[in-house]
């Protein structure tokens, strides 16, 4: 009875589900996908992937995670682990499509004027990220969304560490202008719908 099995897995902790998945139990892994699919797809969209592209990469990331589930030691969260896999897969895809070079070499000129956030309104992170350049968006999301360190991000992007730090710094400044124009403004994350 598939329904019964799903409900049995629904009550288990991620680590227990990973143990089941490591024995080849695909339904247990399916429960993990159900729990964390949106988070992984979301982080890819925040990195700049289109919806369909994000979904493809997220699927590949979960399949890779299933293949390598024995490597997951439960030191961090399962979601963070899959997000890192997804981020690296997305970068590989960008590199394959020769988009990564163009992004990282992108001139900083023609920067869009950053609209200041309305202090009375809750600001959507997705909207705020749009004011960042592609490479800033990648760097900020990799460091804050996937939990990669600056050096891990630099390695994955094949960029010098200092360059990544500069992109993150510049990205944060723009986000701060957008999200928290004045100190003390309460940030409220509005859940995006895609």
């Amino acid at each position, binding site marked *: 009875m598939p329904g019964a099995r799903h409900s049995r897995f629904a009550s288990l902790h991620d680590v227990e589900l990973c143990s089941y998945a490591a024995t080849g139990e695909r339904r247990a892994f399916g429960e993990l996908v159900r729990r964390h*699919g949106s988070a992984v797809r979301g982080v890819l969209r925040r990195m700049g992937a289109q919806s369909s592209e994000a979904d493809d990469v997220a699927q590949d990331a979960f399949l890779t995670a299933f293949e390598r589930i024995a490597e997951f030691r439960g030191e961090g969260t399962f979601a963070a682990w899959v997000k890192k896999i997804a981020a690296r897969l997305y970068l590989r895809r960008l590199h394959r499509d020769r988009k990564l070079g163009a992004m990282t070499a992108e001139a900083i000129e023609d920067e869009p004027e950053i609209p200041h956030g309305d202090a009375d309104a809750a600001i959507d992170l997705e909207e705020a990220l749009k004011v960042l350049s592609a490479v800033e968006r990648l760097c900020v999301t990799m460091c804050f969304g996937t939990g990669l360190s600056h050096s891990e991000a630099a390695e994955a992007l094949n960029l010098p560490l200092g360059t990544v730090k500069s992109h993150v710094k510049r990205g944060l400044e723009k986000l701060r202008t957008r999200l*928290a124009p004045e100190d003390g403004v309460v940030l409220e994350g509005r859940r995006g719908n895609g």
Partner: protein
Amino acid sequence: MAELDFERRLERLFAEAPELPDAGFFAERVERRLDAGWTARRWLIGAAGVVGGVIGASQLMLSNVFERVETAGDSARLLSTSFTHVSAGADWVAAVSNGGTVVWVAAGLAVIMMGFVLTRVIGEI
């Protein structure tokens, strides 16, 4: 300090998963791909087992096993004839010498075992 606060807030914002309307559909697609991969893998393992068995059988055929079995059968028959003179209770030798049936059965089992072992090894990989 304000900078650190902002970074923490940002981390919290990033930690919030967006609510996607097709989350269930996405999970089902991943499960389908997992199932499809598993089925393909099972077919691949099965096919590799059959190929392994066929290769094993062909190797047996090509190594003049027929002649060797006949020679072994003749030798066993000769041995059993001599042996029965020595010990009347040694019927098992005669059983072995009854043509190459036992040897053939053993060879067949060996081929099946080879295929099985290969299947298990690939399955473990």
